[in-house]
């Protein structure tokens, strides 16, 4: 069964995933909007940077973050001079790593949704006296709502499932940085297969249920498109 240590791990994992998701939705919205609207040459490079975690081994990302945030790294020196201490092996460090690692899973669905909305609804809103900011909240956000659900679920689930970054950046400090995936790894190392089974099985169920919910609650684009095109 799940003991106190396991419950602590689960709570920490959920706290990490929730924090990461909220930060990502807040950061990802303007970033995705910019990527969807811009004609700047920076769109390519920035888009590629955001997508990097899709192909990069998490260990690599974790390694560079460790270097940057470590005592000799620029970020590390900054946080030390600000009196914040060092970020690696802390919850905050994990959040920063997770935000970067899960970024594409939040930014890309939002960007796709913003692009699919097109210029017309924005122009209509402008001719109906809505300022650009007003238009964003009254037209763009409601129209992109399904994408927000996808983005939140994917960002959350992906953060729950991360391992490489945590290992590099967080280690396995109970209540601080020991998340489920690391705990499973520790159990297996110690040949505690039954405890590993509980957590691994739980994670498997969780992931399946999340995706099931996503696919059932949100029938894919075709239905909406056919309604849009209906011209009788």
């Amino acid at each position: 069964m799940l003991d106190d240590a396991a419950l602590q791990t689960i709570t920490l994992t959920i706290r990490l995933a929730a924090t990461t998701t909220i930060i990502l939705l807040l950061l990802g919205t303007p970033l995705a909007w910019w990527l969807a609207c811009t004609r700047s040459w920076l769109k390519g490079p920035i888009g590629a940077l955001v997508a990097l975690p899709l192909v990069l081994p998490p260990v690599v990302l974790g390694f560079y973050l460790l270097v940057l945030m470590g005592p000799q790294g620029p970020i590390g020196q900054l946080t030390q001079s600000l009196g914040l201490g060092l970020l690696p092996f802390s919850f905050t460090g994990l959040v920063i790593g997770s935000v970067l690692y899960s970024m594409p899973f939040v930014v890309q669905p939002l960007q796709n949704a913003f692009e699919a909305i097109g210029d017309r609804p924005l122009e209509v809103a402008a001719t109906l006296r809505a300022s650009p900011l007003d238009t964003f909240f009254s037209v763009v956000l409601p129209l992109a709502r399904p994408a927000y659900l996808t983005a939140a679920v994917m960002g959350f689930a992906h953060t729950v499932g991360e391992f490489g970054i945590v290992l590099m950046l967080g280690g396995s400090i109970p209540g601080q940085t020991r998340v489920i995936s690391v705990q499973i790894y520790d159990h297996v190392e110690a040949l505690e297969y039954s405890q590993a089974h509980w957590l691994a099985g739980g994670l498997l169920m969780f992931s399946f249920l999340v995706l099931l919910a996503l696919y059932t609650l949100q029938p894919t684009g075709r239905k909406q498109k056919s309604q849009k095109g209906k011209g009788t």
Partner: protein
Amino acid sequence: MSRITATFKQTLGSFSLDVALDLPGRGVTAIFGASGAGKTSLLRRIAGLERANGSYLSVNGEVWQDDSCGIFMPVYQRPLGYVFQEASLFLHLTVRRNLDYGRRRVSADAQRVSLDQIIALLGIEDLLQRQSETLSGGERQRVAIARALATSPRLLLMDEPLASLDGQRKADILPYLERLVAELDIPVLYVSHAPDEVARLADHLVLLDAGRVLACGPTRELMTRLDLPLAHGDSAAAIIDALVTRVEAAYHLSYAEFSGGSISLLNPLLKVGQRVRVRIQARDVSITLARQHGTSVQNIFAVSVTSLSTDSPGQLMLGLDANGSALLARITRKSADALGLAPGSQVFAQVKGVAVLG
């Protein structure tokens, strides 16, 4: 100062827009031209949806753009209404909330038209609670027009609002447009490439060709000017104003007077004293040298030929003057030669069909 004054000059790739307009600030002005003539480009620049540098635009005394002193009012600050070619309702909102969207953003003292009046004008009372995506194309367009009007615009811009609809739905909506034009005192710029819509709705006309103004003036005048494309082809027609003087209910006929005489109309619903706008298509007019008797044609007017112009290799378009009213007649080149028609010929125009436009 009730004028709309606009100067736009812009080159976009192979297309260049170069117009200087001074239009009446009341009634309906149609911007007419073939596709690619720059009609939509012009309308979008008037709305401020696109910006042409070095331009000037003032609407009834209010400057919306004047690049010489750095004035460019953003779209959302311009008191305009815009109806797009395809009805772009907000699909996440009900009809009612679509109507409220713009209206809520206009201050109470700037609201001059009541929402109920607009809803009644466009006949959308029964649609208010519906979701926008469940409406038909014609219904959506009516709601889109109502939504634009609900902001009490001081200028209504319509970009081929009927183009995405089939013939029957077009015919359904036109009367609504005519009613709102007649009842609301809002100047309208109406982009169209359909001569019949222009004839029915517009008082004033801007003919656009390849980004330039070909001609600009009262609709009636421009429609019968043989040097302009509007006076050619199957849809060429003259519009005349007439006053109903007599109704012959037994025959379902009404008679109306215009400068060229009395014209009989197959419409028993008109009332004596009513002003009507009548359209006479060039293809429905034939020419005789002497007044015919023993013919089924009721409408025969004495006219003089003012001009002749080739319409197609075998056909000529004649400009006619019926004592001050311009008419058009399309006849074969052979007939014209046989009758010896030339400018100044005094002849009779037999009109086979007339349409009352309302």
